[in-house]
């Protein structure tokens, strides 16, 4: 403990009247799979957005990989995020007019340089080697989510943040995606996964429970 890859200190986010997150003190260890669970509106996404540097805190601080991200300006935040964090969204958020391969390459493009071979390998790695040239609307939800994961991985971030990655998927596809995340975790990626499903949360070796913006419980599974 103490020197986790992600550490939040008294992290709060207030939207007008709503205290979306209140004084959260969380430590996430390198290489862990941490699940964040809680009912709808409990502040899970809010917490994740602040860890992923998409959002700034009302008060408190977030330290990711040794850097206090609360002190970074917009441009530095963007650079920090693209170097350190891979994002997996519930709605996949693929660019509708670009092919699977181009969607992955776009992340390379905004990170540094486009290496098509690497992008192909990333898609093959998530079992999408047969769907390079399909646009998102010609892919199933599970396939789109795997393209999204390939995109999250392409710049080799240490941390993977996933917000309800299986929320829009049936059980079979959900399992494929979770197995994939498990494999990535085994390969050394630190995973933070938000869910409201207790079964899914149990895949992690640490579970943080949020209720009404407050951390109510932290369960550590002995591995």
């Amino acid at each position: 403990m103490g020197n986790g890859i992600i550490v939040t200190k008294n992290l709060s986010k207030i939207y007008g009247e709503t205290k979306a997150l209140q004084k959260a003190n969380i430590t996430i260890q390198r290489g862990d799979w941490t699940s964040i669970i809680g009912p709808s509106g409990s502040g899970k996404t809010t917490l994740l957005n602040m860890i992923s540097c998409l959002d700034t805190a009302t008060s408190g601080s977030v330290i990711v990989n040794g850097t206090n991200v609360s002190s970074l300006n917009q441009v530095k935040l963007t650079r920090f995020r693209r170097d350190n964090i891979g994002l997996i969204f519930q709605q996949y958020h693929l660019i509708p007019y670009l092919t699977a391969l181009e969607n992955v390459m776009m992340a390379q493009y905004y990170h540094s340089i486009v290496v098509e071979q690497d992008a192909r390998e990333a898609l093959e790695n998530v079992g999408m080697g047969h769907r390079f040239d399909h646009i998102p609307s010609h892919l199933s939800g599970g396939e789109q989510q795997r393209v999204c994961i390939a995109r999250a991985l392409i710049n080799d971030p240490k941390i993977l943040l996933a917000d309800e990655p299986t929320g829009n998927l049936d059980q079979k596809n959900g399992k494929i995606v979770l197995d994939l995340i498990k494999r990535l975790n085994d390969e050394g990626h630190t995973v933070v996964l938000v869910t409201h499903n207790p079964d899914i949360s149990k895949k992690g070796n640490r579970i943080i429970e949020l209720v009404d913006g407050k951390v109510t419980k932290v369960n550590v599974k002995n591995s």
Partner: protein
Amino acid sequence: MFMSILGKSFSRRKGKIAIAIIAVIMGAAIPSAMFTVSLDISEKVSYEFRKYGANLILVPKSDTIQVGFPGVEFGAVTEQNMINESDLWKIKTISWRNNVLGFAPSLYQVVKSGEGTNEQRMVLVGTYFNKEVEILKPYSPDDKKIFKTGIKSISPWWEIDGDWIEDPNDNTGSLVGINVAQKLGLKLGNTFTIRYSEVPDDTANETEYVLRVLGIINTDGYEDNQIIVNLQVAQNLTNRPNEVHTVQVSALCNACPVDVFAAEIEEKIPNIDAKTVKQLVSAEMSVLNKVEDMMMLVTVVALLASALGVSTTMTTSVIERQKEIGLMKSIGAENKRIASLFMTEAGLVGLVGGLLGYGIGLLLAQIVGISVFDSTVSPRLSVLPLVLAISIGMTLLASSLPVRRAMKIEPVIVLRGE
């Protein structure tokens, strides 16, 4: 990758892009027409100015008699006056006489030539060739009594195939404009017949006259449609002895006090107006300036309208693509990359719109040239970069607000939206 994002986002939004391009075309066509017209016309005017050997034109004072009751005008009757040929020597009696290099009168008459369906009308011009003018009362006793002058000293730049008329008493020789020669199928040495009647188309009372082609002239001016002969030929044919319509005077000097010349000549010869060529040209120039002013106004309005159109389309585009922009930011696109994507898009729209607008502007320029200046306008390639700069600049400027809006998009908010 950039190209692929740009290309695909373009082809997906063909309709919107087309609207933006049309907006730019509207804005670009007007300045394109304006610059083309003003460049071309002012060049033509200054060419005419340069090529004029004459810097003064003498015309008879026209007495305009107002018709109607006091305060109620029905119109005006202009009596066509003439200048007396016998007064012309007085031009050489002004104090600036040594600067008068030459003068040449013109007597105009529309005549017909050719037979049947090939009948043509053209202007016969009588003027001086190698004319010896006697100075009756020289300004000073040292002045020569005889002054040799003619059209050659006024328009030495005429291109002549063949010869000038050298003999002032040649009553059949003529210089034929290149267009006339073509229409009548005339070659050097040919003879041809012209017909003249006092009342137009009074075929019963036509006088015929046979002329010989001594030279064919090519001036790119009115002369190309004229037949030029010794003055007495035209005077005899039309029975107007001692009469001329206008006189061109060439007065060469550095920083000519040409207005002083004009005033002195007006003093010496009764009932004429001496107009400086500068005055004539400046009339044309002032029309050009007025047209330019008006077009400038229209240009500003057109550019504003077009900027509004571009700005609206770009704003819609940004709003439609909010999610995409938010996503690009979330995976690491900095604001400047987003801005450059939209600015490139805008620049391309400006480029294409500018190119098409330039083309349409050329058509507009023709219309303005023909309807206002009676002259076709030749396309000017030098206008193209100017128009492109304007249209691209305008598009970028008009896009700057929508682009700022794109830069303000926060990924958290758009990615949250289900």
